[in-house]
């Protein structure tokens, strides 16, 4: 009883500041947050920087060309201009940095985290922390998280982890899932679709996709993203097993080399790939990461 009242009170208080507490799910402690609408971007220098950040995010190929080494845009993995819950939205990210990352064994600021996505996900080079591009991206993320409590885990932040697959994830089954649910957009060879120089359907593997150091090459990350977001417009319709299988299939193809490559695949695997991934494994007679 006391508890209910306390919850109700907390709820009311949180709702006042534009938030409420989600109930029921294991994430029940997570705060529900709604980012501000675009119409409220102020018409001043702060507002112009926000818009620049959004432009870079949606069309990285154009607005941050010099830092990009593949055909992707940030929005391809963080949907709806970085707003969509369960696709590692920017508002969810902003309030959880600085944070410790095992990837480099350090506390990282949001800017450093974004540098990581440029280097690996965009197979490019990292803009400096004080570059106009980085300032714009961080400002955009800051604005999207307006009103969210610093340090909170917001509901829909990150990609929602999937429970372990019932049956060991399988390349062959994944191939069938891919042919039936993904190929129509992402192509027979995962090459995606580019029209008039614009990426319409992003490439999932091959030389124009993200590299072997990107978060998405991890099967657990990819399965989580795919389950929640793919096929486009039909998120959460695949079974968990299908998501694990198709993620395994997609992430068992060749892609650009890990920028941390030491010159030797086995050694690079040992140093950097103690994770749920296929780097350095032999698939269909070829060592992944070994052909570039």
């Amino acid at each position, binding site marked *: 009883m006391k508890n209910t009242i306390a919850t109700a009170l907390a709820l009311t208080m949180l709702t006042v500041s534009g938030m409420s507490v989600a109930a029921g799910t294991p994430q029940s402690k997570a705060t529900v947050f709604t980012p501000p609408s675009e119409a409220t971007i102020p018409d001043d220098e702060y507002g112009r920087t926000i818009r620049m950040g959004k432009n870079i995010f949606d069309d990285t190929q154009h607005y941050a060309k010099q830092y990009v080494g593949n055909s992707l845009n940030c929005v391809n993995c963080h*949907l*709806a201009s970085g707003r969509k819950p369960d696709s590692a939205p920017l508002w969810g990210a902003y309030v959880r940095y600085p944070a410790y990352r095992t990837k480099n064994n350090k506390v990282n600021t949001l800017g450093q985290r974004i540098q990581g996505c440029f280097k690996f996900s965009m197979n490019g080079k990292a803009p400096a922390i004080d570059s106009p591009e980085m300032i714009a991206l961080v400002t955009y993320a800051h604005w999207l998280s307006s009103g969210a409590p610093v340090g909170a885990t917001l509901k829909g932040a990150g990609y929602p982890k999937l429970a372990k697959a019932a049956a060991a994830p399988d390349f062959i089954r994944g191939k069938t899932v891919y042919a039936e649910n993904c190929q*129509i957009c992402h192509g027979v060879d995962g090459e995606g679709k580019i*029209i*008039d120089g614009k990426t*319409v359907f992003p490439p999932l593997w091959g030389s124009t996709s993200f590299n072997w150091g990107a978060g998405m090459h991890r099967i657990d990350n990819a399965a989580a993203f795919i389950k929640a977001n793919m*096929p486009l*417009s*039909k*998120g959460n319709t695949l079974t968990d097993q299908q998501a694990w299988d198709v993620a395994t299939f997609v992430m068992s193809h060749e892609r650009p080399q890990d920028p941390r490559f030491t010159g030797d695949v086995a050694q690079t695997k040992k140093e950097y790939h103690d994770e749920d991934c296929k780097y350095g494994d032999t698939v269909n007679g070829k060592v992944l990461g070994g052909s570039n």
Partner: protein
Amino acid sequence: MLKEHILKHILFTAMACIPLMAQADDVAQTIINQGNKQGAVACMACHGIDGGGNAAGGFPRLAGLNQTYITHQLQSFRSGKRNNPVMQPIAKALSDTEIEQLAAHYAAMPLPAIAPAGGDPALLRKGEAIATEGDWDHGIPACFQCHAANGAGIAPDFPAITGQSAAYITSQISAWKSGARANDPIGLMKSVAGKLSADQVKAVSTYLANQPLTIGNQK
């Protein structure tokens, strides 16, 4: 000697092909103008001489649509996956070959001159937002993510959605909602249609009918 032989061969093949191709196109043109005397009535009566359709009748434009897409639609009418009392008997009266020839013919036709339909500016702006950004709060991607910039289509599976009237676009979204049209790959368009509110359908179809026609990647 050998060269001459090859030349003759090429010439012969070319000559043999031209009448064949012309014949196929003649067949298509005849059906379009007069029907096939097997129950398929003249397409032109509803879809227009230039294949531009008819907004008032809710008849879609066919000229310049993708060939594979047209074939797929005629087969869907035949199989009943696309349920429509007008087109089903017509499609059933067409042979596989006639379907192929008609699809090739319409796909090769020049884009018809269709004037933008206009509309209330506020409604057009609302429609533009759905077409170019979607409504992700309700799980709706931008229409142009699948139908390409300007709605010009992405061959072969995603048709052009410009050059169609608001009435036709609205009728198709309703058909997906009701299940009368169930022929779309992976149920992609069904899932989008199911999430659109009546207001959104009105806004987006008004916007699309006001867009200029472009070929894009539709061919």
